[in-house]
């Protein structure tokens, strides 16, 4: 029976409804939170992979500008594939050489896809949908049909983004930030403005934002109103807390981006001048616009979203780690309450720091001082979160499962990302480093080996709950080590290049910029020397690092092959779980049958203790699940006092 049946008119005749939904109802237009979670997660993983391929093309163009993409001939010789490749990319890559136009498209779409179609759908929507209702002990989300709508709106936005590659104009080219006035006025010379990559980007974003709005309303309502009996706020896992905060960020930060998208759409389609100053000229001619608008307004609206968005990207990783680390160290999460309060503080402060992305716009000292202070302040709760996770390792008997490997790599990687961000908080350093590879290195350390490692940990951790089988351990390790090496080879040299002044948008990696080739240091010498050992001629200056980073990207790509194999093959071929709680965890999701049926729990579940009761002295086993009154025995609902009623309403 579909859960949707409860949310509409048929509340009283569901007795007639007891039939299994067909394939479409069960797997495609499902309202079950677990199916939707898996749909979100798989879509997110596929988009991450696609965004990664765009990045590989970019990295090729940076390291070997003017040289054809390897395998170009092979791709072109496969019918079908060659058509798709040519319509999407080949049109701008004559002879397989990436040109500037294409590089701009790849850059804009890499950012968009990774952030809005990859990490948020996987990290937030995927995990929260699958895990959160289980973890708070309820049968589904509060609004299952809205949940389905959320996924399908997201799906439409994803298709819109992908389809924009095939339009006559190609996809959008103005960077994932879409700064006006450039983004408002560029390439308007088309026969039909509605069939323009930029228009499709903006419309897709409107769909994407609507999807996240529905999702976040659903998540918050579910957490507020559907927690199981006995699961008080401070008995709720940190996972749910972090997702709760993320949902608030999505709820409140996305609307200003929607405003920005709508106003830019109006500028492009209806000719308004929201973001266009008076007297704007292009190609020596005054544009046919009224002017009088403000380019800065766009940046304010955009970054008012996009800074909280950073925490939308990173908090799911913290959420997952807070589950993975205690389960694999067999120790309680250290500083659970501090983490909850730090998370809430982080969420609040994230709305007050946006203009630190805009130091270069020439804001006054008063303004920039304010934003420097809030930016430094926000590092405090971030450090508390990271420190608590690190201390949680102390004295544990760590099981190095693949998820724990990813989790333990997350800690230093996020640490590097966070610490390199500190200098950027100050205007005097930021003015020099703005738009250089230093910034790219900084935020990629946060979101790539940071967030994405966290998400991988989550996939390995909950895979047994979703499928009843455990992912292969060896392939997991084969996935982890090349990923770790590859990520660092890509992003660490960026700091050096960035401080050398490499600009982030050079499609030739700086080859044609004279000054870039004169700088060398011990690291570039070492790079050149090591490549020399293998007979490769790599310049011993900063340009040589481009080659190193591209090799890192290739290693990273190869590292994903074991994961893809592992992910699909383990569904049928993985080792079966020994019971419903294969990792000996404490939170409620492990009390369900495996995989959880529709409705989730087979008994009336209540929570009688905190979420991380590992290694309780004198218990006889090293974990004490939240739902058990004594080991192996589920608590009776009657044992939990009813929650006090709120003040009487009408």
């Amino acid at each position, binding site marked *: 029976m579909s859960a949707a049946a*409860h949310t509409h008119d048929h509340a009283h005749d569901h007795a007639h409804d007891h039939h299994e939904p067909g394939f479409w109802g069960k797997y495609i237009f499902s309202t079950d939170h677990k199916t939707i979670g898996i749909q979100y997660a798989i879509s997110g993983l596929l988009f991450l992979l696609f965004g990664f391929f765009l990045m590989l093309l970019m990295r090729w163009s940076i390291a070997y500008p003017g040289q054809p993409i390897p395998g170009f001939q092979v791709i072109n010789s496969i019918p079908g594939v060659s058509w798709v490749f040519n319509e999407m990319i080949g049109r701008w890559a004559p002879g397989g050489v990436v040109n500037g136009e294409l590089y701009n498209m790849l850059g804009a779409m890499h950012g968009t896809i990774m952030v809005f179609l990859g990490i948020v759908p996987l990290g937030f929507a995927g995990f929260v949908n699958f895990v959160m209702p289980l973890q708070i002990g309820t049968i589904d989300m509060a609004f299952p049909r809205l949940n389905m709508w959320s996924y399908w709106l997201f799906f439409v936005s994803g298709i819109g983004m992908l389809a924009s590659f095939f339009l006559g104009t190609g996809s959008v080219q103005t960077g994932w930030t879409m700064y006006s006035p450039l983004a408002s006025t560029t390439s308007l010379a088309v*026969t039909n403005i509605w069939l323009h990559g930029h228009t499709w980007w903006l419309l897709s974003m409107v769909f994407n934002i609507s999807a996240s*709005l529905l999702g976040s309303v659903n998540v918050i309502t579910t957490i507020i109103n559907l927690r199981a009996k006995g699961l008080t706020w401070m008995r709720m896992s940190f996972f749910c807390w972090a997702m709760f905060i993320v949902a608030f960020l999505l709820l409140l930060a996305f609307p200003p981006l929607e405003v920005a998208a709508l106003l830019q759409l109006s500028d492009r389609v209806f000719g308004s001048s929201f973001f266009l100053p008076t007297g704007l000229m292009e190609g020596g001619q005054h544009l046919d616009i009224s002017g009088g608008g403000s380019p800065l307004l766009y940046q304010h609206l955009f970054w008012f979203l996009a800074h909280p968005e950073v925490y939308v990207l990173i908090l799911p990783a913290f959420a997952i780690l807070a589950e993975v680390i205690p389960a694999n160290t067999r120790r309680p999460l250290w500083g659970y309450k501090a983490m909850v309060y730090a998370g809430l503080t982080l969420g609040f402060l994230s709305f007050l720091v946006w203009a630190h992305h805009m130091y270069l716009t020439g804001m006054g000292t008063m303004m920039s001082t304010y934003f420097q202070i809030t930016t430094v302040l926000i590092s405090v709760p971030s450090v508390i979160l990271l420190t608590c996770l690190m201390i949680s390792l102390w004295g544990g008997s760590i099981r190095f499962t693949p998820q724990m490997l990813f989790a333990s790599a997350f800690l230093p990687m996020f640490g590097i990302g966070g610490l390199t961000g500190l200098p950027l908080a100050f205007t005097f350093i930021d003015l020099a480093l703005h738009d250089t590879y230093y910034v790219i290195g900084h935020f990629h350390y946060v979101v790539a080996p940071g967030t994405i490692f966290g998400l991988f940990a989550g996939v390995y951790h909950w895979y047994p709950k979703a499928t009843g089988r455990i992912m292969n351990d060896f392939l997991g390790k084969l996935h982890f080590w090349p990923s770790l090496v590859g990520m660092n080879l890509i992003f660490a040299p960026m700091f050096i290049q960035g401080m050398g002044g490499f600009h982030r948008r050079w499609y030739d990696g700086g080859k044609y910029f004279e000054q870039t080739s004169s700088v060398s240091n011990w690291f570039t010498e070492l790079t050149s020397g090591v490549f020399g050992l293998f007979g490769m001629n790599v310049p011993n200056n900063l340009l040589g690092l481009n080659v190193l980073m591209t090799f890192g990207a290739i290693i990273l790509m190869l590292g994903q092959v074991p994961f893809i194999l592992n992910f699909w093959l383990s569904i049928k071929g993985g080792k079966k779980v020994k019971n419903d709680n294969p990792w000996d965890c404490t939170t409620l999701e492990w009390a369900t049958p495996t995989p959880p049926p529709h409705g989730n729990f087979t008994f009336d579940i209540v929570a009688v203790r905190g979420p991380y009761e590992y290694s309780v002295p004198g218990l006889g086993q090293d974990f004490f699940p939240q739902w058990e009154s004594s080991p192996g025995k589920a608590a009776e609902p009657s044992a939990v006092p009813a929650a006090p009623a709120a003040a009487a309403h009408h």
Partner: protein
Amino acid sequence: MDIPYTVTARPDTGLYNAKVGIWLFLASEVMLFGGLFSSYIFLRVGADYPWPVHELNVTLGFVNTLVLIGSSVTVLLAWANLKLRNIGKYKMYMVITVLCAGAFMVNKSFEYKAKFQHYSVTLTDGTILTGHLPHGYEIEFGDVTTLNLTVAGKHSAVDADPVDYVVPYIKGEAPKFKTESGEEIVLDKASFKKLRAEAHDKAVAKAKADGLKETPNWNVKLTAASPITFVLPPSKLLAKPTPGATAIAFRDGTTVEGKMINDKMTLEVDGIDLRATPDKEKSLAFDEHYLGEPWKKAFIDQREHAIAEFNEKYGDGKGGTTRDPLKSATHQKHMFFVPIHSATPEVHDHAKAEGEHKAEAHAPAEHAEGGHGGHHPEVHLERQHVHFFSNFTPKLNSYYAIYFVLTGLHGLHVVAGAMVLGYFVFFNGRMLREDPERLANRVEVGGLFWHFVDLVWIFLFPLLYLL
């Protein structure tokens, strides 16, 4: 396996699910409209042109305010009556609410329509003339003998398609064209498809012969049997035509060479806005070919009148004023915006004015079409005097841009709210019989949304109409 708390409230929060949900949704909506209101403030504070004030019809806006407030009351009454199970009254109040939404939108559509038909022309010296274009605005470009079509070599957004983008604007009957190979054709879908295929083949052959990696663009020349004249709105061109242009480019990339025959704009002036004109008395608007001396005199009279009025109102008795006249947008408007209600200035010697200015400025009423045409002077503006023109749409300036986005988005909310409430009253009959409490929750949630829509309007109305 029912989801808990869909109908009854959870004891510790005191709320049922949908109520939590709608408040969260409204929080998000507050951020959406908050972003737009902030944009309004940002644009107004940063405006480098006189911000339009008192431009909208306050009566219409006020009526709409009353309609919305009334509907907020009726939706509440509907919910209360449903709670009391007064089904008849519940239905009546719901229907009234939905009808109010309809009335609001009808009202709004009148406002919008008036703006779409009203034009504003900024002259090169900053003077703005507002009014109506009795014949629309089209330019006439003639003496064209050849069409240059560009067939794009690779898939491009600008590709020759003269059948849709060029032929419709030919004055008179579409002529026959001669292709480069000497064939005589009528330009239609079939003949152009053939032409384009040939051009493409040639481009590919050339690319092969020259060893090029991509197919180049290919130019196709079509010679007309007799010279063609185009009549078209300038928006159909890829780039706006300059005065005296000898070539124009159509939206599909087709270019033609010829002569600009007429790019004058005929405007029935209903207002002169001199706020942004540096030397107001020498404004182009008072050029003898345009509005001429009498209107200049009318302007000077009005300005003196406005200054006197201001001094009387805010005079401090010592020859100064208690308020800075330069900082009052209202006063600026009273001084420098001359509304025009008649074909000639009222306070003027009519006979003398007619005698002196036989110019087009005082065009007789025979051009008049519709109600007000005859009451306004008609001017024929030279293209080189026109800096920018638009109807009262988002293109005109950032005030109208934010006006349309705010009211448009608000209008969408009204429509959505009306659809939801209409659904509850017209299509939820079964729930009304079987689970009225649940329906009451729905109406409550829908009503909360409706109050929000009302609240947004209560902010919008003073912001856009009064301030």
